[in-house]
C-alpha cells in the first residue's frame, strides 16, 4: 500500500523538458518521489502525458508501471484545490477495485500543479489503434467476444458497493487489448474527475455518448449506449465522432457491412436507442444476449454468407459508330451532329440521333482534342502538332497553326483568340483573324490541361507540376506548384479554382491569389477534370473511386467504388453522373447518393468525358466505338 501523507514531492531531480506539446513534459530519467524513473511518453492527453516508468523499489528486477499525469494550471486557487481533492477521492475509489479488466492502481500523489497516478502497465493496443492498423472492419465473432468482456467489467462496476460506478466514457480508445487478447479498460474515470461538474459543461466523448449524458445524467444505460456505439464503429469503421450525434439510425450496420448477422445488429440497435428506457435495462441483459449469440456460431456463419446482390439494370446503346482506331478524347454535340476525333487521324461528324456518318476530315496525326464549335467553325488540335480550323457543315479546312509538339489539349475561345496548350511546353493565344499567335507562355512541361477562361483570367495546369493563372495579355498573375503533373482541366466557381493532380490531391485555390484554401487527399493520383454540382465537387481518381466532396469544407459527401481506375471525367445530365473507367466500364451513378444506376461494359478503356444532348449521352471508347445511350 501507499500512503498519501508520506510523499516526498521534492524529488523531481531533473529539469523539465520544455520542447514538446505546449506544456512541460517530463524528460526520460526524471525520478518522481525517489521511486518512479520516467522512461518514455506512451500517450498524450488534454491534461498531461502518460509515461512508462520503472519502479525503483524493485532494484533487482525491472518492474514497469504507467504514470498518468494531470497538470492543473487553473489560475484560481479554489478551483485548483477542488480539482486535486476530486483526483484523490477518485484514486481512493479506484484503489479498491479488483477485476482482471481493470488496471491495478499502485500509488498517487500531487506535486505543485501536477498530480500523478501510478498504475499497472498494460502491454497491448487500444481498439482505436487496432482499427487504424487494418482497412477492414473487425470480424463479428471477435467483436462479440470483446463486447462480452466489456459487459463483464461493466457488470462489476455497476454492482459495486457501496456506490455503483458508471464508467461514462466507453470508446475504442479506452479499451485496450492485452497480449492474451483480453480487454482492459483504461483512462479510468480520470477524464470525468477533472471536469468541473458545472451544469451545462458535462460532456463525455461526442459520438459515443448518449443524449442524456449531455444533460449531465449518467446511468447504467449510458455505458450500454457507449458500448453499442463502440461496437457499431468496430463493425462499420464509421467513426461516430465524425458523424452527427445520435445518428446511428441513419447508417444501419448491415447496410455498410453485410457480413454482420441480423441478431448482432438487433442487439446493437437496442443498445443505441435514443431513449434510455428502450435500451437494455442492465448490462447483464446485454451480456446474456451476446453470449446466447456466441453459442450458436454455426447459425451465425450461415447468416453472414448472405451477400447483398444488386441487380444490374441491363442497358443497351441506342446506336454505335465505329472508327478505325481508338477514341481517347471527348465528343462535341452541336446542331444534331456529334463531332469526335480518333487515333485513325480523322475528325468525324456523325448524325446525333441515328449515328450515321456525315463526313470526316483527315489530318496528319491522331486527334484527342475535344473539338470546339463556334460560329459554324470547329477548332481542334492533333498529335501532328497543329491546331486546325475547319467548317462544321462540311469539314472543309479553313486554316491551321503549327506548334512544336503534339497537341493533347482542347481549345477554348475568348476575345477573338483560340487558347490552347501543346506538348512543346508552350501555351498559345492564337488570333482567329490573322491565324498568328499573339503571345505564348513558356512553361515547365507539356500543357495537356484544357484552360478555363473567366472574364479576365486564364487558368491551366502543366505536366511540369505547375498551375498557372494568367491574364489576357499573357502575363502570369500567379503560379502554384503541385508535387506531380497537373493534367486535369480546372474549373472556377465562386472565386475558387478546382483541379486535381497526379500527386493524389484535389486542390481548391483562391482564384485571385492562388492561396490554397483546402486539399482533398485521394489514395492515388487523378488526371480527370473536376465537376461542380450544386455545393459539391465530383472528381475521379486512379484509386478507383469517384468522389463527391463538399465545396466549402472538403468534407466527403459520398464515394462510389468502380472496379478499376476512374480514367474519364464525369458529366452531369439531369440528376445522373456519367463517367468511364480504365477497364472499359461506363457508369451512370445517382448524383445525390452516389449509388450506381447502371453500367455498360465497352471493349476498351474510356479516357474522355461524355457529352449529353436531347436525352442522349455520347461517349467514345478505345475499342474504337462511339456510343449513344439514353439518359
Amino acid at each position, binding site marked *: 500500500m501507499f500512503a498519501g501523507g508520506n510523499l516526498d514531492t521534492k524529488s523531481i531531480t531533473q529539469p523539465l523538458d520544455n520542447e514538446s*506539446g*505546449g*506544456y512541460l513534459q517530463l524528460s526520460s530519467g526524471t525520478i518522481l518521489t525517489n521511486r518512479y524513473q520516467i522512461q518514455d511518453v506512451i500517450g498524450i*492527453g*488534454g*491534461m498531461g502525458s502518460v509515461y512508462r516508468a520503472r519502479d525503483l523499489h524493485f532494484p533487482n528486477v525491472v518492474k514497469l508501471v504507467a504514470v498518468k499525469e494531470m*497538470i*492543473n*494550471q*487553473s*489560475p*484560481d486557487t479554489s*478551483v485548483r484545490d477542488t*480539482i486535486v481533492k476530486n483526483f484523490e477521492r477518485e484514486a481512493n475509489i479506484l484503489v479498491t477495485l479488483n477485476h482482471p479488466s481493470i488496471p491495478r492502481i499502485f500509488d498517487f500523489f500531487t506535486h505543485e500543479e501536477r498530480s500523478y497516478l501510478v498504475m499497472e502497465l498494460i502491454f497491448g493496443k487500444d481498439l482505436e489503434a487496432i482499427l487504424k492498423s487494418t482497412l477492414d472492419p473487425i470480424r463479428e465473432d471477435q467483436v462479440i467476444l470483446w463486447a462480452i468482456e466489456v459487459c463483464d467489467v461493466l457488470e462489476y462496476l455497476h454492482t459495486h458497493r457501496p456506490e455503483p460506478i458508471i464508467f461514462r466514457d466507453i470508446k475504442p480508445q479506452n479499451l485496450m487489448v492485452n497480449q492474451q487478447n483480453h480487454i482492459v479498460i483504461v483512462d479510468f474515470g480520470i477524464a470525468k474527475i*477533472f*471536469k*468541473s*461538474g*458545472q*451544469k*451545462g*459543461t458535462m*460532456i463525455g*466523448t*461526442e459520438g459515443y455518448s448518449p*443524449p442524456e449524458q*449531455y*444533460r449531465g445524467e449518467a446511468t447504467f444505460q449510458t455505458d450500454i449506449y457507449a458500448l453499442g456505439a463502440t461496437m457499431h464503429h468496430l463493425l462499420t469503421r464509421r467513426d461516430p*465522432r*465524425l458523424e*452527427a*450525434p*445520435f*445518428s446511428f439510425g441513419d447508417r444501419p450496420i448491415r447496410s455498410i457491412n453485410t457480413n454482420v448477422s441480423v441478431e448482432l445488429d438487433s442487439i446493437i440497435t437496442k443498445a443505441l436507442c*435514443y431513449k434510455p428506457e428502450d435500451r437494455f435495462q442492465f448490462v447483464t441483459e446485454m451480456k446474456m444476449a451476446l453470449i446466447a449469440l456466441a453459442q450458436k456460431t454455426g447459425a451465425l456463419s450461415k447468416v453472414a454468407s448472405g451477400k447483398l446482390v444488386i441487380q444490374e439494370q441491363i442497358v443497351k446503346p441506342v446506336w454505335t459508330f465505329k472508327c478505325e482506331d481508338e477514341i481517347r478524347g471527348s465528343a462535341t454535340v452541336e446542331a444534331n451532329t456529334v463531332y469526335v476525333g480518333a487515333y485513325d487521324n480523322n475528325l468525324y461528324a456523325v448524325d446525333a440521333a441515328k449515328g450515321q456518318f456525315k463526313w470526316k476530315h483527315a489530318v496528319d496525326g491522331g486527334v484527342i482534342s475535344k473539338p470546339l464549335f463556334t460560329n459554324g467553325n470547329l477548332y481542334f488540335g492533333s498529335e501532328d502538332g497543329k491546331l486546325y480550323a475547319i467548317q462544321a457543315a462540311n469539314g472543309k479546312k479553313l486554316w491551321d497553326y503549327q506548334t512544336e509538339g503534339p497537341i493533347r489539349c482542347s481549345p477554348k475561345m475568348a476575345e477573338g483568340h483560340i487558347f490552347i496548350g501543346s506538348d512543346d511546353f508552350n501555351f498559345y493565344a492564337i488570333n482567329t483573324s490573322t491565324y498568328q499567335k499573339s503571345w505564348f507562355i513558356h512553361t515547365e512541361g507539356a500543357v495537356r490541361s484544357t484552360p478555363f477562361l473567366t472574364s479576365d483570367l486564364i487558368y491551366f495546369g502543366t505536366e511540369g507540376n505547375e498551375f498557372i493563372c494568367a491574364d489576357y495579355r499573357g502575363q502570369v498573375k500567379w503560379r*502554384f*506548384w503541385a508535387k506531380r503533373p497537373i493534367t486535369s482541366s480546372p474549373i472556377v466557381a*465562386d*472565386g*475558387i479554382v478546382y483541379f486535381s493532380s497526379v500527386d493524389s490531391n484535389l486542390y*481548391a485555390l*483562391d482564384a*485571385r*491569389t492562388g*492561396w*490554397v*484554401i*483546402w*486539399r482533398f487527399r485521394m489514395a492515388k493520383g487523378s488526371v480527370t477534370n473536376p465537376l461542380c454540382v450544386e455545393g459539391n465537387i465530383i472528381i475521379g481518381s486512379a484509386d478507383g473511386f469517384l468522389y463527391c466532396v463538399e465545396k*466549402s*469544407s*472538403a468534407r466527403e459527401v459520398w464515394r462510389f467504388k468502380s472496379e478499376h481506375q476512374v480514367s474519364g471525367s464525369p458529366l452531369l445530365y439531369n440528376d445522373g453522373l456519367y463517367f468511364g473507367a480504365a477497364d472499359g466500364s461506363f457508369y451512370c451513378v445517382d448524383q445525390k447518393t452516389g449509388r450506381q444506376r447502371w453500367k455498360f461494359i465497352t471493349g476498351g478503356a474510356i479516357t474522355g468525358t461524355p457529352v449529353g444532348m436531347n436525352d442522349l449521352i455520347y461517349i467514345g471508347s478505345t475499342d474504337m466505338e462511339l456510343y449513344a445511350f439514353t439518359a
Partner: protein
Amino acid sequence: MWSFLKNLFKEKSPKKVVETPIHTTPLSEDQLEGVSKASVQIRPPQFIIGTGQSVGMQRDHNEDTLFTFSSVLGEGTNDLPFGICIIADGMGGHKNGEIASGVAVRVISKFLINKVYLRFLELHHEPMEESIQETIQHAVSEAQRAVLRYAPGGGTTLTCALMLGEQITVAHVGDSRGYFIYADGRIQKITKDHSLVQRMIEIGEITEFEAQSHPQKNVLLRALGQNDPVRPDVQTFQFPKGGYLLLCTDGLWGLVSDNDIYRIVTSNPDESKACHELIELANSNGGPDNVSVILCSSRGM
C-alpha cells in the same frame, strides 16, 4: 447606366426594406452591384469592421471575448485585403469561463497573425505548406490546448473568420453564430449550432418553437476545452457582394429576430453604430446574457 443604378438604389427606401420578407428571389450579380455600397468604386478593396459588447441586464460580469483585425496593403495590381473576426462565449459559471474565452481568442488570433498575416508581409514569401483550412484547424487545436491548460473545467464557444480577399474561411465550435447579410435582403446563417436542442430538432424530437424555451437549450455538444480532440466545422465562403458578415453570441441571436438584424444593419451607414443598436435591442428585450457582436462589410470587391 449610372442613372439607372442610382434610381434603383433610391427606390429601395429603408421603410420598404422592413416590409420585405427575408426570403426573396436572389438578385443577379449586376443587380447586386447596383444596390450594394460598392457601387462607388472604392480602391483598394478593404474590410470595414464594427464591434459591440455588453454584459447584459442580468449578469454581473462578462464572459464573452471578441477580436477584430483589418489590414489593407494597396499596391495597385495585387491588392489584398486581410481580416480576422473572432467571437467566443465562455461558459462554466465560475471564473474559468471568462478565462477560457479570453485564452482561446488570444491564442487563435496570435497564431493566425503569425502564420498567415506576417508571412504575407515577407518580401519573399515561400508558398504555404498548409492550406488555409488546415491552418485554421491548427489554430483551433492550439487554442484548445491553451484552454485545457489555463482554464481547466472551463469551456468556450468559438467562431473565427479569416478573410483573404473575397474568400472567407470560418472555424466554428459551439452556439455562437455567423450570418451573411446580402444586399438584396437575404439573411443566411453560415454556422450550425453544436447544441443539444439543435440536434433534437434535426432528429425530430422537438420543434424549433419548443427549442426556444427548452430547459436544456444551453447544453452544448461541442465546446473548446470540453471535448478532446476538438472538431471545429471549417468552411470557406465567398464574401457576399455588397453585403455583410455578422458574428454574434447567443445573447444576441436568442433575443433579436433576423428581420430586426437585417433592418438595423442596412439602415445604419456605420458598422459600429449598427452593433450598438443591435445590443440596445437585445438589452431592451431583457438582456439575460452577455452580448457580443461583430459586423464586417467589404468595400471595393
